[in-house]
């Protein structure tokens, strides 16, 4: 690879190819660490609480939530849109950045894609769970039935939602999994027991690393990237239509599709930042997920955060400009009504806090980045809450205005989805390669002279002073000279 003197290294720590493999595969094969066990335990508790609250809801009814005649959706759809939004970064990183040849994506794309999958799973819980009769949820699918013309209503944005989300989920899952195939092969090759070998062999569909394999793999990646790129835009556009096609002031807005997409990318990157700052330090992946990665993502957050801010401003302007009393009041009420606090949380978290990322020092301070990313997550959750609850609770006919107060069960379910998400994410970290091994190797500097000399020297030194180390210089160097397209042992 061309060795630019200006470009920062995408992988630091002067890794050899072997080291990359070892760094990523060893945690999979070794017993879990205490940190992992602690995190997993915590996530499982949240999951258990969530399961309890979900079961309670299923048995008792939606009445166990705080909804009422006026506010028919609140936490449920807030969480749904929140999770769908989070699910945007993964595909954006893996698909759009792949098409744009943004090589830095390789360090974070695997984890981000995984996050997408888990977030969409969390999101998909809600449309089912929030139904009055969830056991009939399959009616949403256009299944052939014996009721004659009784089918679904293709005019309903809820039906579009189902298609959008399920398409997005399938394509994302496919993309993510297909990317995992060569790495599963690597894990299999490193596995020591027969059982593990067989499992990973199965998961890798018998990957052998032949040129044919690689050609097909590359082609598939490109095709899937092409397919998922429009999906990044379409999913949240359609989710936004759940609101935009209604007649409720504050929902009935044409700005929603771009606004929601920008918000989704914003929230997705917020969540990626949260996870990456943690993962890189807990799993000691600073060399793969570098400060450079974090900074790049911070910049995306600033950009999308300002788009979201622009949308907020536009909404207010249009409400004023429309001359519609209902619109004007809805937005007045958002900011200064009884739920005004949630509006200001949203604005300060989404518009103000990302502005700190203009400062390089802040972008490079992992603690601050983590905190701001949490703010972004909170802000984006509140954005959905504000849109849903403040629009509904004081809508057109004032006699029906009513306040909404969430119940324990609703909090429990939300925490439960966090549990689902993190449990799945921890399992992923433990059993799947967190970094796309093959792809990372493609962006390592392996061909420039400086690299070679630096590296060999160091390796030789290493061998000289640490003969106990399992793999020698020659092997390392030899690996380093191999073409990155070839599979690594």
């Amino acid at each position, binding site marked *: 690879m061309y060795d630019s003197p200006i470009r920062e290294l995408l992988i630091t720590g002067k890794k050899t190819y072997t080291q990359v493999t070892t760094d990523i595969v060893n945690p999979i094969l070794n017993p879990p660490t205490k940190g992992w066990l602690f995190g997993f335990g915590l996530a499982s508790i949240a999951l258990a609480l969530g399961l309890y609250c979900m079961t309670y809801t299923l048995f008792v009814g939606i009445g166990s939530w705080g909804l009422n005649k006026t506010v028919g959706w609140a936490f449920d759809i807030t969480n749904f849109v929140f999770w769908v939004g989070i699910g945007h970064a993964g595909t954006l990183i893996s698909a759009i950045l792949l098409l744009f040849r943004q090589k830095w994506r390789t360090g974070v794309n695997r984890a981000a894609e995984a996050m997408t999958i888990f977030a969409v799973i969390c999101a998909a819980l809600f449309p089912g769970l929030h*139904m*009055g009769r969830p056991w009939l949820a399959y009616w949403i699918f256009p299944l052939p039935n014996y009721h004659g013309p009784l089918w*679904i209503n293709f005019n309903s944005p809820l039906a579009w939602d189902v298609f959008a989300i399920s398409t997005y989920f399938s394509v994302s899952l496919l993309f993510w999994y297909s990317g995992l195939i060569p790495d599963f092969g690597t894990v299999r090759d490193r596995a020591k027991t027969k059982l593990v070998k067989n499992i990973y062999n199965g998961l890798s569909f018998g990957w052998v690393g032949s040129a044919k394999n690689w050609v097909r793999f590359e082609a598939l990646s490109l095709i899937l990237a092409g397919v998922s790129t429009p999906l990044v835009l379409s999913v949240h556009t359609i989710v936004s239509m759940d609101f935009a096609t209604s*007649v409720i002031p504050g929902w009935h807005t044409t700005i929603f599709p771009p606004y929601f997409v920008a918000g989704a990318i914003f929230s997705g990157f917020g969540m990626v930042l949260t996870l990456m700052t943690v993962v890189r330090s807990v799993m000691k992946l600073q060399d793969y997920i570098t400060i450079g990665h974090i900074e790049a993502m911070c910049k995306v957050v600033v950009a999308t955060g300002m788009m979201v801010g622009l949308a907020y401003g536009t909404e207010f302007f249009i409400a004023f400009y429309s001359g519609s009393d209902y619109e004007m009041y809805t937005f007045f009420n958002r900011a200064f009504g009884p739920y005004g606090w949630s509006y200001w949380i949203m604005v300060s978290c989404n518009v103000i806090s990302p502005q700190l990322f203009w400062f390089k020092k802040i972008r490079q301070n992992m603690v601050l980045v983590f905190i701001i990313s949490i703010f972004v997550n909170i802000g984006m959750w509140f954005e959905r809450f504000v849109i849903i609850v403040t629009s509904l609770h004081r809508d057109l006919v004032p006699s*029906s205005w009513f306040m909404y107060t969430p119940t324990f069960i609703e909090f429990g379910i939300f925490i439960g989805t966090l549990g689902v998400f993190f449990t799945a994410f921890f399992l992923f970290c433990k059993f799947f390669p967190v970094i796309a091994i093959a792809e990372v190797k493609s962006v390592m500097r392996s061909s420039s002279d400086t690299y070679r000399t630096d590296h060999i020297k160091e390796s030789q030194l290493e061998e000289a002073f640490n003969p106990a180390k399992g793999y020698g210089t020659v092997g390392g160097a030899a690996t380093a000279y191999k073409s990155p397209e070839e599979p690594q042992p």
Partner: protein
Amino acid sequence: MQEKKYWGSLEERNNDPEYLKEAKKEFATDPFLQEMDENTASNRRGFLKILGFSVGATATLAACQTPVKYILPYVNQPETTKGSITDFYASTFYDGTEYGAILVRSRDGRPIKIEGNPSSMITPQGTSARSQASVYGIYDSKRLREPKKGTAKADWKEIDNLVKQANASGKSVRVLAHSITSPATKALLAQWKEKNENVKVVQYDSLSAHGILEAHEKSFGKRVVPAYRFDRAEMIVGFNCDFLGSWLSPTEFTAQWSKKRKFTGDDPSIVSRHVQFESNVTITGAAADERIPIKPSHEGALLLKLHNLIASMTGGESLPGQGMESAGNYINVVANELVANKGKALVVSGSNDVNVQLIVNAINVLLGAYDNTIDIGNHSNLRQGSDTEAEALLQELNNGSVGLFILVNSNPAYTHPAGKAWTDAIKKAQTSLALVTTENETSTACQYQLAMSHYLEAWDVHEPYKGSLSIQQPLIAPLFNTRSLNECLMAWLEDTRKPNDMIRELLDMNESAWISFLGSGVTGASVKIEKEGTKAEEKKEETKTDSTAKAEPKVDAVITLSRPFAGGGELAKECRECLNQAANAVQTKAGSGKGLEAVLYASVALGDGSLAHIPWLQELPDPLARTTWDNFVAVPVKLAKEKGIKTNDVLKVTVGKTTVELPAFVMPGQQAETIAIALGYGRTVVGDAGMDCGKNAFPMLSLENGAVQYAVSGASVDKTGATYKLARVQTQGTTMGRDVIRETTKEGYGKYIKEYQDQRNHLLTHLVSLYPERPQIGHRWVMAIDLNACTGCGACVVACNAENNVAVVGRDEVRRGREMHWIRIDRYYSDTTKEKKDWNEDPEEYPDITFQPMLCQHCGDAPCENVCPVLATVHSSEGLNQQAYNRCFGTRYCANNCPYKVRRFNWFDYTNKDKFMYSPTSSDEINGLERFVLNPDVTIRARGVMEKCSFCAQRLQAGKLEAKKAGRLLHESDVKPACAQACPSGAIYFGDVMDDNHQVAHLWPKDSLVTREGKKGYDRAFHVIEELKTRPSIAYLVRVRNRKETKGSPKA
């Protein structure tokens, strides 16, 4: 294609002509029918025709000619009856506080719904909320099911013997009952008195009219409550008199009042003038043109001033004293207007103070009201009770001189100011019996509790007004071992006749008169009924359409009040003296009226609390506070500001010697120096639903000159620091400057309508709909609601509950905003003095108040319909927005997207008795009795589905079938949703907008639905939030207040 042909038989093969004849028929011929075909030249259709006719004829003939002697519920259903066919029987609701001539709908031999009896001249339309709810009482599982001695079972014979012994030994017998309107009961009691002269009947009314009775005795020498005729008055002035809500006979008065309030033309001049002086806010005050807040203690002095002003203008004799000025000098204005309307004016006061009523009588005499608007000749029997006699009885009981005390469906231990003293006193009687339907605070103190039949289980006849009879027919044999009062009296008098024979003999009616009486339910019915079967409505409709064949229907064509008027009298000679005394007394009272005063009022839903066990009524929101399940202290805005009181703050209220802690409700319109508390709450011995509902305010009542006073001075309120969340169904009072309701003044009517129409035309031309226009074939159901006539009484809400099996969800669920009512009555405080665009959430201190019934608008282009992912809510070809419960899986998007927020979600399984013990929809194996009140035509909705108003689709269907069977076009009266039927003011018009014979078609806005394009629209009609292009099937008629200024009334 098969080329081979297979034959079924040789005949087929041979193309046998016999065979070919048969082969064309769809079904093989039954040998029996074949025989019939041949012999009678009849066929299957003919057979069905004959069957249909004979069933119909049998039913009609059976109803016509066989006097019903026994009515028993079916164990095995006879073949001749059809389970799904609804029958109506005429009956009467009278519970001591109000009267209503009713039709009771019976299905499978059980009464399930109360409807207004349009044959009645007294209550010609609708019912009250309470009479609607009364049918629930028959299926109340906490009913007294058998006579009891203490808690043990007793025997009727034992009780009969007790009474007979008492009779024989000449013991003093005291019967305490609410006003007795039944001539039959009176006759039996008279017989008893003949037998035993120590028998004395004391009539005691929980909502007393003692003041009116005494005042009329003094003024005219007749101790009666006269018949007030609001329908004949052009100018009505009320003083603390909630005649539309709870005073004397609200259903009747609402019908009368509304006659001159609603109009269907372009000329608002018909609208009468109604000025209301009042302390607490009532629906009457809200309905009035002007509402002037006064202190209750000032009422007499204000009336005195009014009297003297009128006297000086009409040349009458003034009374001593100056009286008192009202706010904004309004008494002078009112006096001028009253005199201008002399002979068409009516002044009424709800006061129970004899002195006040004396002055009211004097004013009405000056105004000539007794010849035109007040009828002493055909006086009312609805209130005959005497507070002094009740007090005397209490003394007598305390003395221990009563041998046998009989309590009849009355509850003085709860409703009398002396309260608990009654239970102690009753225990001193040698023997005490209580004849009650459900145990109450007083009956439990009696030695024996006799299970009384529900009024729908017993024969009786009522004479609500002199000369007007009203039958009380049983709909079902007593469910339990119960007896009516008449049956008890007959048993004690050893009268072995059947109760109905006794009544008929008493009334001395021949067969045809009796049958006709049973059919129409009332004497002197506005419509003659030839046959029994009480399809009174239909009969009337036919006569109506005959006589007004071409003319546009008018409101008056529907109600023909030809009620006789006998007139009144001159003030008695000696009355001058008592009037002078009264004038002095009211002056003194006004002088002493300083500080905070408490008004204790009967609420629209619960009245005196006798029906507090009926969950429909507990969950019926208070029309003004929009609270359910509890009473509250209505705190005026000014006082609330001074003391920092907010709604839901628990206040310690001290009135006289009574102190209660009640949550506050800051009530705009409440006079600044008064508080108000509803009576009827805080029952302690009552069915489950009435337990722990509010606090009892009856002990706060005071006795003044022997009369119970419903306004008491010397009240105080203090914050306790605690809060109690009232279960409110509406939390926002103002319209926020939105055109949700529209109102104008009589003066500004033309201008307003023009402006509105200009605005609307602009709207219709500039806003386009994305939906294609659809042609309309067949019926198109629409509703028009006259905001001028809607009083907010809530009868429609309870009627809807009963008709559509709406679940009762209980206090906690209402607090969470989950009441299930399909129709609600929004109450708006209109800020007339503020700029329209002002988003003011807080109403003024004394705002105008308007009610708006809100139900599914059945939008032509319904926002709910396109968002349902599974097509569970769809549009019918007749314009109905239909909800398919089976298909709904509960995404609630439709409810979110409903601009009117009328969709209701089944948050829980409302059939779960453990959680929703009060709901008639819920049942368990033991106490499932309540479920018998459910309407079998309407599904009980499952958990997790959306529901809403269906325009009573089941009634529409029945009406269509009725018309189809009769082979005629559908009449407007064939299809009345429960709310329209129940409305006592007839504010709800319903019908087919495509049919010009339907009145509603002429009350419809121009260009509102595609179907009416090009038709002349009614300019007064408007849709709510029309700019959304939902094209609703409900139009509201602009409220027109009969006043000059557009600003509000003068404020105190």
